[in-house]
């Protein structure tokens, strides 16, 4: 860490994450051989809290995760912050929603196993508030985790008659991921897309010119 202060790294992470961070996730920011233990992290969080004491931001710990929030005294001004652009869901939120749609009924643990990272309660809360997902039961395993599934509101929002309208996973896999591969191929050469109508009509792109289906070689 050298000159960089642990307190500042923690502050930067909380500001950048956009979601509450547990001690484990804070620890994971560091290489194993220099990873601060939980006590050290807690001390840094304490330092941060003290440093923030005179400012408009405060540190909160909810359900063992830390997050920053504006002090309530600033609410009168902040209430007037109307968004100019509609906000966006984080990638994590969209991934979670997509996994629930394809894998329902599914537990949070299963979503995490697929995503490879933790799914915050915030995300599930957001999706529940939107009424796109709901708890449809609990799984009979230790801990009795909740099972999530999508709702009719979800189908309606995405104009799906049923989940079967979603493109099969195999088609998604086959598609080339933009930006990941050399993409200089003149598309005329490969316009014969293997997956014809898999490129669903819902792909709403306003690109100019005719967009041939993605060629897959």
């Amino acid at each position, binding site marked *: 860490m050298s000159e960089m202060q642990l307190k500042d790294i923690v502050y*930067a992470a*909380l*500001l950048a994450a*956009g979601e509450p961070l547990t001690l484990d996730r804070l620890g994971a920011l560091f290489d194993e051989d220099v990873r601060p233990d939980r006590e050290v992290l807690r001390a840094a969080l304490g330092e941060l809290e003290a440093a923030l004491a005179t400012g408009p*931001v405060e540190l909160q710990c909810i359900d063992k995760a830390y*997050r*920053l*929030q*504006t002090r*309530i005294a600033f*609410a009168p001004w*902040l*209430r007037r*912050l*109307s*968004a100019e652009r*509609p*906000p966006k869901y984080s*990638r994590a939120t*969209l*991934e979670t*929603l*997509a*996994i629930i*749609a*394809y*894998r*329902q*009924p599914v537990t949070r643990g299963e979503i995490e196993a*697929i*995503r*490879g990272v933790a799914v915050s309660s915030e995300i599930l809360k957001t999706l529940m508030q*939107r009424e796109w997902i709901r708890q*449809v*039961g*609990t*799984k*009979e*395993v230790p801990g*009795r985790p909740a099972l999530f*599934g*999508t709702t009719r509101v979800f189908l309606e*929002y*995405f104009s799906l008659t*049923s*989940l*079967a309208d*979603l493109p*099969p*996973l195999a088609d*998604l*896999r086959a598609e080339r*991921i933009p930006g990941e591969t050399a993409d*200089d191929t*003149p598309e005329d*050469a490969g316009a014969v897309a293997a997956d014809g109508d898999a490129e*669903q009509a*819902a792909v*709403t*792109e306003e690109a100019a010119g005719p967009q041939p289906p993605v060629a897959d070689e």
Partner: protein
Amino acid sequence: MSAVLVHGEPLAELPPDLYIPPDALEVILESFAGPLDLLLYLIRRDNIDILDIPIAEVTRQYMAYVEVMKAIKLELAAEYLVMAAALAEIKSRMLLPRPQTEGAEEEDPRAELVRRLLEYEQYRAAVERIDARPQLGRDFWAAGIGTEGLDQERPVPEVSLEQLLDALRGVLMRADAFAHHRILREPLSVRERMTRILETLRPDGFTEFAHLFDAGEGRLGVVVTFLAVLELVRESLISLVQNEPFAPIHVRSCA
């Protein structure tokens, strides 16, 4: 010095710095973003004055590369061949005696090519500089904090199906990278039905098995429901109870 074999065929002519394994060669050749990129590479590599290109020599080298690309069956953009033709034309025009017209000087046959190369090179350099700039999510992150309890009237985010699928593609790529998760085992219709069945089951008590089926859905619907029930049983999400042979089967949520 032995000739480099590509697919068993010796290459007739190779630029002197091409003694590299064909695999690596492929990577190098694929990294050219187009014929101008390749030409610039040849010119800058040999410290050639771009304003006085020895066109015959550069054409020879260029063609050698194009031949290698063809030989290892790289998908060769048509533009490479167009450029080859252009180079050949310039070369032939350079050989012709220049008519001495009074006053205005005859334009150098290479002028247009040089102009294009210089212009392209500017953008190629700009790419490096743009890529070197701080990038969101790579070098810096937008700082933001929660606004819980502010009861702002915020519009809800809009999501397109494509964005949703795009997010899923990301997951699939990662999942492929670290393990082979079987994300999808059943057709979606079955998974959807599993959710619906869980919803209809009363939290305490039994639901009659037959009530889960809707004859109006036809055969396919019945099959989907049946598969969903089997899958739910397999995942220990519901249990089936039958008190005696031929008695009605009841379904109970395990929760």
